[in-house]
């Protein structure tokens, strides 16, 4: 009995994603920090924090935030505002971050996972910070700062502590990323820092009803695998401490993928007093219910919905549907192929299976009939006479009497073997269901 059996995971996740608007959140600088060829080449008085710079909000970023909130089942605050989050750090040029405090754009949402529901506490919009690079220059340890990323629009999605396993955390993360990409509001590329994960982790006794008294924040996780491993590691670490009667320290930790361990981190934000107040430079945002509805109309069919519909409309198996709806544009094109297939002998599910098993190659955007033709060629059967078939079957049965006996005694799996043997004997491709039927007649 591992010590973990006594405990259950109480975990909440925070996801930050950079929105892929053309311009930054509060100024008209180009929003492409990863693509910039030089540091500090996409800045202006506003995002560089020069005296006298004033923020002007990016309308599209706001609409996209609401779009995401609606897609995740959130309620929308019809009256919202931006607040200043005040703290000092070299990558924060104004000495405050424009964010949202008590009236985020979205709240009270829900995400379904195979391991249960995860409630979304809130989604808010804020600006990203600059980037720090640690180097040694002229023998001194320094940090180099690049503000190309400063004021890029960032949405923050916060969940309730509803995550109960490392796998669920991963599933949740992947689902969020998929939705962001489906909505085409973020590339969510974790290697580029377009999506960042943070986990708030604690353990409670399996039969406990209250939330634990502590939580540990794990930051700077930039892959789903790292997140899964970090949570696993933390669970072990907490359990070991709890078994000894100790409570894990309430702190922030980082994940070291090389050692496979978390480590305590002095964070720029621990126990800070952010002195939030409404940003006097930005008027509040007020939406009508009708405007929210218009945004809702612009939400495309999401992956889950599409997969369910494919099951009904095209009779495609659930796991094939899930895999093939992962990428929106590919899925929308595939749908045209499946729709065309319905008028032929080839079923959408056959195509789906062949595509997933890489039996046929496909190129997104090509004509549906090309794909179908390719599949049909692959599975085309040659002409075989009844006589040829009988002869081949008789030969196979004769050469494999022991196997036939075993088959009659219940080893039905051997049917596949017989089919293969017949086809080899014939040297031709035969329609499989017909052959199966014939064989069963002969040997059963």
């Amino acid at each position: 009995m591992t010590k973990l059996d006594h405990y259950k995971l109480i975990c909440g996740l925070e996801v930050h994603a950079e929105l892929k608007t053309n311009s930054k959140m509060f100024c008209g600088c180009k929003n492409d920090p990863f693509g910039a060829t030089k540091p500090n080449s996409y800045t202006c008085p506003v995002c560089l924090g020069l005296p006298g710079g004033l923020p002007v909000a990016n309308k599209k970023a706001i609409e996209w935030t609401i779009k995401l909130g609606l897609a995740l089942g959130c309620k929308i605050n019809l009256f919202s505002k931006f607040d200043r989050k005040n703290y000092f750090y070299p990558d924060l040029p104004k000495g405050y971050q424009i964010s949202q405090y008590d009236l985020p754009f979205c709240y009270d949402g829900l995400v379904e996972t195979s391991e249960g529901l995860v409630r979304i506490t809130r989604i808010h919009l804020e600006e990203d910070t600059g980037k720090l690079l640690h180097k040694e220059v002229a023998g001194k340890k320094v940090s180099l700062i690049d503000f190309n990323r400063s004021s890029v629009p960032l949405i923050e999605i916060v969940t309730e502590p509803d995550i109960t396993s490392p796998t669920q955390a991963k599933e949740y993360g992947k689902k969020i990323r998929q939705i962001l990409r489906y909505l085409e509001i973020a590339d969510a590329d974790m290697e580029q820092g377009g999506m960042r994960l943070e986990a708030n982790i604690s353990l409670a006794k399996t039969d406990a009803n209250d939330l634990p008294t502590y939580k540990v924040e794990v930051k700077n996780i930039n892959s789903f695998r790292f997140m899964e491993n970090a949570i696993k590691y933390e669970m072990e670490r907490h359990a070991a401490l709890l078994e000894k009667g100790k409570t894990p320290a309430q702190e922030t930790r980082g994940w070291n993928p090389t050692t496979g361990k978390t480590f305590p981190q002095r964070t720029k934000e621990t126990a800070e007093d952010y002195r939030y107040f409404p940003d006097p430079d930005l008027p509040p945002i007020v939406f009508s219910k009708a405007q929210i509805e218009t945004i809702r109309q612009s939400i495309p069919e999401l992956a889950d919905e599409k997969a369910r519909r494919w099951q009904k409309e095209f009779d495609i198996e659930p796991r094939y549907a899930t895999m093939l709806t992962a990428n929106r544009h590919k899925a929308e094109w595939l749908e045209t192929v499946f729709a065309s297939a319905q008028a032929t002998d080839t079923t959408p599910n056959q195509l789906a299976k062949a595509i997933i098993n890489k039996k046929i190659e496909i190129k997104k955007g090509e004509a549906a009939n090309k794909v179908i033709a390719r599949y049909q060629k692959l599975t085309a059967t040659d002409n075989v006479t009844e006589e040829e078939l009988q002869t081949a079957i008789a030969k196979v049965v004769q050469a494999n009497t022991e196997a036939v006996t075993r088959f009659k005694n219940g080893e039905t799996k051997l049917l596949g073997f017989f089919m293969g043997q017949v086809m080899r004997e014939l040297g031709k491709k035969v329609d499989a269901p017909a052959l199966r039927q014939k064989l069963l007649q002969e040997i059963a």
Partner: protein
Amino acid sequence: MSNKISTAQVKHIAALANIPITESEEAQLAAAFSETLATVSELMSVKVEGVEPTHQVTGLQNVWREDEVDQKSMLTQEEALANAKNTHQGYFVVERIIDES
């Protein structure tokens, strides 16, 4: 609510505000604070039940911009760095922050 500020509180506020102060300044600041707080504490005598705060007198709402790049307002790298005392290959430079791994 006390209007007297201790030097310990002054130290804490100075840290929050990222203002370096000397020990002698601590006492001066504590006195100045207390004086100011005494003056503004009269505000507590004003009846504000049911009154909404005014954060902005303009009454404006929904002021925003279209998602377009404003090339004209962007600074070149040279302009961005021109007033910094410490730069290196296009970056601003500070002493190493110790918490990052």
